[in-house]
């Protein structure tokens, strides 16, 4: 027979109010199997009736030791772990990792590869925001939103599949470029999407933006001011909804983002509704970037020519001894990276995705640390939900856009 073990509340003594121990307030678990926690997140709530007095997030249920695992793999092989990190932003994670490796070993990326990287990461951002907007609607009982968002997401996943053969875990971006050039159908597939998508965003907005029930549930709920956000390391749409214009794509342009003309949507209210608006606006801006990058897409190679890090093309292996040696060495041993450490950050759909990468002169990373945006964004939750209702907690949790794979690593 299995026994139900009493949870030891002694360890939470310093986190809940004294009233919890007199029985005046109630301690209640929300999760780890609760549908609106978006994965496996446990929230220990101290409730006074329906009002949240304290909220203690408990994470780690999805911890898979990605950082430790990456230390045991070569630079090329470690990349597949980054896909599994934040499964809503797989291409963006690859980009963050590859940029860190390129910075560490000082590797160049050809312009065509950069443009394709931008197109794919922006497509991934749209995918991520579509999932966000769909589940956000689902949490607030606007279930039809989910169907609409996933319809468009499917088109984009098809584009990723067209390029890489995989819908989600693409590993298409590689250190020094991309895996291979995009197929000829790529351009028409993306253009088809660009044609229909603005109307679809209007559809979403018609469903949600002025919906009186939604407005009732979102406006003025879960206010987050800039000072608190910065103290808690909140970045991304949540920070921009609070009124600070901080986007790494604009502030420290990488991959040629400076050539594209786009706006950074900023709202000043800092409530759940502002976060919703910022996400919807970012859909339009990302689409603008995709269109511009596709129009400007230069011709040329998609992989760096540096043979110390990049395997030679198949055609050279038959005729060149050096090519054969490089091919063999790179696939068996991997390339060595110099001793030293770099920190490189990109703007993921959730905020600043940073990678601390340290090399020790060997072919494996000595230490990889992933500064994942969801981790810090979630840490602010217990601050902003105090005094709200349980139903509002669901809306706030949905609006700060967390992915548990990103938090637990």
């Amino acid at each position, binding site marked *: 027979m*299995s*026994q139900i*073990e009493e949870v030891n509340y002694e*360890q939470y003594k*310093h*986190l809940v109010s004294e009233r919890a121990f007199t029985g005046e307030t109630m301690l209640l678990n929300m999760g780890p199997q609760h549908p609106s926690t978006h994965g496996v997140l446990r929230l220990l709530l101290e409730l006074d009736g329906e009002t949240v007095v304290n909220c203690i997030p408990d*994470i*780690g249920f999805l*911890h898979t*030791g990605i*950082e*430790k*695992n990456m230390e*045991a793999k070569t630079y090329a092989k470690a990349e597949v772990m980054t896909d599994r990190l934040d499964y809503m932003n797989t291409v963006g994670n690859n980009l963050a990792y590859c940029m860190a490796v390129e*910075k*560490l070993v*000082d590797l160049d990326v050809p312009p065509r590869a950069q443009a394709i990287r931008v197109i794919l990461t922006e497509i991934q951002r749209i995918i991520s925001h579509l999932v966000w907007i769909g589940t956000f609607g689902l949490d607030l009982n606007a279930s039809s939103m989910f169907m609409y968002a996933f319809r468009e997401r499917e088109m984009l996943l098809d584009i990723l599949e067209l390029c890489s053969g995989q819908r989600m875990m693409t590993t298409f971006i590689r250190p020094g470029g991309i895996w291979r050039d995009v197929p000829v159908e790529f351009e028409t597939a993306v253009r088809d999407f660009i044609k229909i998508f603005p109307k679809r965003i209007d559809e979403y907005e018609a469903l949600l933006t002025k919906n009186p029930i939604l407005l009732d549930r979102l406006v003025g709920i879960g206010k987050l001011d800039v000072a608190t956000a*910065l*103290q*808690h*390391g909140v*970045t991304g749409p949540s920070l921009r909804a609070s009124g*600070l214009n*901080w986007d790494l794509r604009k*502030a*420290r342009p990488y991959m040629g983002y400076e050539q594209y003309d786009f706006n950074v949507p900023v709202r000043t209210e800092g409530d759940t509704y502002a976060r919703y608006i910022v996400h919807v606006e970012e859909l339009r801006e990302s689409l603008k970037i995709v269109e511009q990058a596709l129009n400007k897409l230069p011709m040329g190679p998609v992989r760096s020519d540096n043979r110390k890090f990049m395997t030679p093309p198949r055609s050279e292996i038959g005729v060149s001894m050096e090519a054969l040696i490089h091919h063999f060495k790179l696939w068996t041993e991997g390339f060595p990276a110099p001793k*030293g*450490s*770099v*920190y490189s*950050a990109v703007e993921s759909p959730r905020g*600043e995705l*940073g990678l*601390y990468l*340290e090399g020790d002169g060997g072919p494996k990373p*000595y*230490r990889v*640390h992933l*500064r994942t945006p969801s*981790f*810090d964004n979630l*840490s602010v939750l217990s601050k902003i939900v105090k005094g709200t209702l349980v139903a509002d907690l669901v809306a706030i949790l949905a609006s700060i856009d967390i992915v548990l794979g990103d938090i*637990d*690593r």
Partner: protein
Amino acid sequence: MDNILEPIVKSFQEKFNATYEEFRGEVHIFVTAEQIIEALTLLRDKHEFELLSALTAVDYWPQQSPRFHVIYQLSSIAKNVTVQLRVPVNGDQPRVPTATRVYEVANWRERELLDMFGIEFEGHPDPRRILMPEDTEGHPLRKDFPLGYEEPQFTFNFEEIDLRKPYAKE
């Protein structure tokens, strides 16, 4: 070096007797554990580094002194620069004062370091493990912690391995 960072590094050299190194255009300033809170407060209040982007550590085992480096990656939104502070910590009883009162984001990040590296943060308001279960032994990201594989069970040694296999409690 960036001309915004140069005066900052200079003032750190004078005030804390700090050393620095540069790699790929990034500046790493070394300070001691006693100075870190003052250094972070100075960076936040005087030099407008509002955001503690990352807080992590590296284990240089088997080297013992210093065994760890605690790394503070700071970003300034106003000036658009980043700087890294590194605190070398010895292997026996690694201790660093908590930065929670300077940057609240350090709360969870320090819990992660306590969990993963066993580095204690003095004065931390909530020193519990964050990712691993409470009854975990050891600190997974230390270099002397094995990566961990499951022992394959065959018919001849099934029972024997089953006895010492960790299962979830019934």
